[in-house]
């Protein structure tokens, strides 16, 4: 089984430290150089598209929530982008459509993404 995960390293411009602060498991990341599957919003929330699901990770409190899982025939998700307000997000799909979401009413439903030191 192929496992993907992300390191989050802080203060790189300050000292380019090699210590990774957190590791994020992301088992279903579509490995495609041409897609844009991560975006950091002005409200300090990271959006990550994994397969047909978009997850939101709130960096201020570390909470993770699921924004949407699209239908199999519409997915996978091929791009995510936060609006400048940090509240609205656009989700591009493999089926050529783009969904717009308001994330303020987003309910924390499940945590698939696990952080460890």
């Amino acid at each position, binding site marked *: 089984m192929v496992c993907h995960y992300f390191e989050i390293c802080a203060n790189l411009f300050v000292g380019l430290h090699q210590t990774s602060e957190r590791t994020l498991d992301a088992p279903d*990341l579509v490995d495609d150089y041409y897609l844009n599957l991560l975006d950091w919003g002005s409200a300090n929330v990271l959006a990550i598209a994994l397969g047909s699901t978009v997850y939101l990770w709130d960096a201020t409190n570390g909470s993770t929530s699921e924004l949407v899982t699209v239908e199999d025939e519409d997915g996978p998700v091929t791009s995510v982008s936060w609006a400048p307000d940090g509240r609205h997000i656009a989700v591009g799909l493999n089926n050529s459509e783009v969904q717009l979401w308001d994330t303020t009413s987003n309910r924390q439903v499940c945590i698939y993404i696990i952080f460890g030191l």
Partner: protein
Amino acid sequence: MQLRTLRGGHRQRVGSLAWNNHVLTTGGMDGRIINNDVRIRSHIVETYSGHEQEVCGLKWSASGSQLASGGNDNLLYIWDRATASSNSTTQWLHRLEDHTSAVKALAWCPFQGNLLATGGGSGDRCIKFWNTHTGACLNSIDTGSQVCSLLWNKNERELLSSHGFTQNQLTLWKYPSMVKMAELTGHTSRVLFMAQVIDSFLHFVEHKSD
């Protein structure tokens, strides 16, 4: 809460997105770039035609006046918002052919309005700097690896590049001398994405293990 679905613009997957106030710009595998006004029912307000393959990089300048797009056709386009038209496809301001591989990494300089940094794919490996007003290439540096993303430091005249094949490195460059200030190697897979958050800087490394 889902607000709406934008459809009818693209014929293939939408791999790149960029916001300019209430306009969401979408880039597709069909090579099309479309400005969508998300406030109105007929959301397609402008179309930019030029790319012949998938649009993989899309960034608006900070002022919102210029759009940079990069494609798998190795082309970089600069589009002027002021000349965009709703009733015909818009002519580009500059069509730049210098990269020899896909152009995904795009970064507008935060301290110089017409300065754009771009990075090429594994067949190109170069970071190039452009005056987007004139279309002149100001500098080109061979990094030795696929360029995945570029990020200007908001506080210092520095540029950070993240890479894939072959070295998977992160490199911090002084601008404009392009002296390497630091390099971080040892990643086992390419560094796909970076973000600068307040004073700290974050990067994400995609790893693969069997």
